[in-house]
């Protein structure tokens, strides 16, 4: 089936690639999008461990109803704030875009780099500055406002390092903005000849939509936290009701960013899934155009549903109804994707390698998370479940069961490309399974707890909730083991020589035509694209016995 005009060059394992230069300086001053992707990979992983450690301590405390294991509620309150802030702003928002997006977008569209490589490096430094402040806060006092920073608690009553936290979030926001800006420009101007919009991989479409949200949403968060810092720092009234302000206004500004931000977290994940499924089903994706368009639809409609976090906040009833209705609309494009992925398996020739297992796990868990999101956007039901563990379960289903699964799936899928190494397939499958089981055991009981009425952010809770909480904690330990596993075998794989070959999965897509690891300039020739993506054929693969080094021969 291949139509190759030019012989692909034989790849020689020892040849120069983007990883060849080992000096620290070459890493810290690099403008290579692939190296910056690696820098992000390392830093994002560290933050995940920090957030995960906080989660582990929280789950430990919640084994007993009395607040006895961690000593004081102030410790617990700092823990969940740290967990939320770190996991959202320093792990999940940058995870897929800044690691995989950075690495892959230029490769996928046939470019030598992003449009603004120096800006790209700058966004990593900005991120690191923000992150360092976050770590500083963690070590010298902590914050206890929750990741939502609601006023007037954050501005007038908390006596923790709120101003620092606001500054950290403010700064990190700019890293996100710069990344998004870079992606949009790159996708517009740097596509190789023949790479028309409808030949773009869906991963790129998803990142395009994500970048729109980053560019248009993040500045509002920056202003919202800046106002918090000013109000608190100067002791003046901006959101203080006694001084003419309104605390609900802060909630509007905050959620104007933070609802769309949940799509910053899930859209790239959806992009990853759209790459993995056709590859392992060995057939073109079903409904390409609808999946591409639905990413944009989610990004746009996602901007006008933020009030669904505020149904019981004292928002007017009319506003509540508008926001509720629009929330149901935003489910439609998500539904389109889920159904199209499922249909892609029809008449495929499906293989179950680690990335595919993660992708299938994603579909199931995201669906449950999304459908419980529907319950939350139902006005009357949300009255009861708002700020209970039902909400906690909902968003972990989407963010951990969805986005993190997709992230791990993507890391496993592109690991051979990034490093040139294969990992142990057995351990990979084991990790996917462990994560899936541990995850459900951790978070399914929380739906029940939430409807029973256990509020979130509780250090102590009523004793009848204990059994379900113990189940959840047990699940969390399995989950932690599941996450520790890839950390172990992926690092281990680095000790082997790079033998994965250009295209171990037999995948289409430009990134699979360059060396693994790619050379610094990605392409020796300017690629010319002459067909739609995902040109797999399930029939041609009948005699296919395992993936070979050069799938195209």
């Amino acid at each position, binding site marked *: 089936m291949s139509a190759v005009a030019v012989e692909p060059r034989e790849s020689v394992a020892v040849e120069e690639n983007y990883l060849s230069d080992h000096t620290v300086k070459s890493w810290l001053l690099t403008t290579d999008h692939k190296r910056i992707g690696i820098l992000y990979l390392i830093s994002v992983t560290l933050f995940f461990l920090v957030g995960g450690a906080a989660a582990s301590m929280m789950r430990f405390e919640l084994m007993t109803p009395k607040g006895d294991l961690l000593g004081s509620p102030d410790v617990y309150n700092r823990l969940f704030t740290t967990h939320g802030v770190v996991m959202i702003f320093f792990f999940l928002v940058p995870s897929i875009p800044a690691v995989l997006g950075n690495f892959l977008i230029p490769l996928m569209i046939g470019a030598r780099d992003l449009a603004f490589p120096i800006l790209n490096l700058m966004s990593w430094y900005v991120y690191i500055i923000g992150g360092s402040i976050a770590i500083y806060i963690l070590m010298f006092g902590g914050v206890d406002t929750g990741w939502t920073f609601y006023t007037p608690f954050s501005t007038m009553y908390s006596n923790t390092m709120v101003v620092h936290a606001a500054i950290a979030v403010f700064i990190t926001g700019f890293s996100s903005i710069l990344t998004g800006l870079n992606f949009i420009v790159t996708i*517009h101007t740097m596509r190789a000849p023949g790479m028309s919009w409808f030949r773009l991989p869906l991963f790129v479409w998803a990142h395009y939509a994500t970048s729109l949200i980053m560019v*248009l949403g993040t500045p*509002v968060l920056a202003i919202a936290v800046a106002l918090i810092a000013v109000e608190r720092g100067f002791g003046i009234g901006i959101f203080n009701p006694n001084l003419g302000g*309104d605390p*609900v*206004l802060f909630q*509007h*500004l905050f959620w*104007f960013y933070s609802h769309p931000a949940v799509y910053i977290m899930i859209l790239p994940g959806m992009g990853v899934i759209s790459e993995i499924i056709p590859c392992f089903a060995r057939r073109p994706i079903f409904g390409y155009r609808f999946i591409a368009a639905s990413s944009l639809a989610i990004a746009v409609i996602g*901007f*006008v549903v*933020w*009030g669904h976090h505020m149904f019981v906040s*004292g*928002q*007017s*009833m*009319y*506003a509540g109804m*508008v*926001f509720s209705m629009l929330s149901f609309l935003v489910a439609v494009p998500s539904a389109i994707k889920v159904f199209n992925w499922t249909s892609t398996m029809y008449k495929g020739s499906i293989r179950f390698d680690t990335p595919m297992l993660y992708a299938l796990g994603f579909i199931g868990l995201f669906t449950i998370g999304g459908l419980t999101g529907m319950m939350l956007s139902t006005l009357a039901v949300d009255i009861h479940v708002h700020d209970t563990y039902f909400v906690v379960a909902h968003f972990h289903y989407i963010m951990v069961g969805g986005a993190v699964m997709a992230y791990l799936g993507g890391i496993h899928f592109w690991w051979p490309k990034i490093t040139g190494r294969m990992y142990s397939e057995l351990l990979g499958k084991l990790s996917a399974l462990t994560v899936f089981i541990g995850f459900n055991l951790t978070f399914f009981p929380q739906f029940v707890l939430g409807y029973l009425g256990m509020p979130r952010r509780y250090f102590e809770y009523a004793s009848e909730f204990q059994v379900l909480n113990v189940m959840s904690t047990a699940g969390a330990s399995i989950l932690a083991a599941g996450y520790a596993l890839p950390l172990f075998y992926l690092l281990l794989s680095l000790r082997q020589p790079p033998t994965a070959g250009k295209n171990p999965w037999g995948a289409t897509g430009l990134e699979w035509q360059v060396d693994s690891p790619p050379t610094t300039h990605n392409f020796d020739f300017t690629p010319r694209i002459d067909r739609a993506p995902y040109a797999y054929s399930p029939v041609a693969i009948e005699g296919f016995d395992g993936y070979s080094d050069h799938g195209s021969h």
Partner: protein
Amino acid sequence: MHHVASIKSNLVVFALLMVLLLATVGASYVPLGVMHFPVAMVIATVKTVLIVLFFMHALHSHRLTWIICVASFLWLLLMIVFTIIDFLSRGWLDILGK
């Protein structure tokens, strides 16, 4: 590669901007009642359109530039309108706190 605007057209646009500026200031002294605010905003918008089209050369650039201009303005409007919906409609119903 780019359309080069003549000095004359630049000056004409500038003159229009000045006229509009005087118009806003003038309008603020005319008792327009509730129309006061919309009038001021319409004039500001016209000024913006002039600057964007002529000084920033949007008139002769890509469709994409147009889309970005309109979209960012629209997004701002979206944010303001949907936030105001809440504050404006509080108390429309005879239910305390709704």
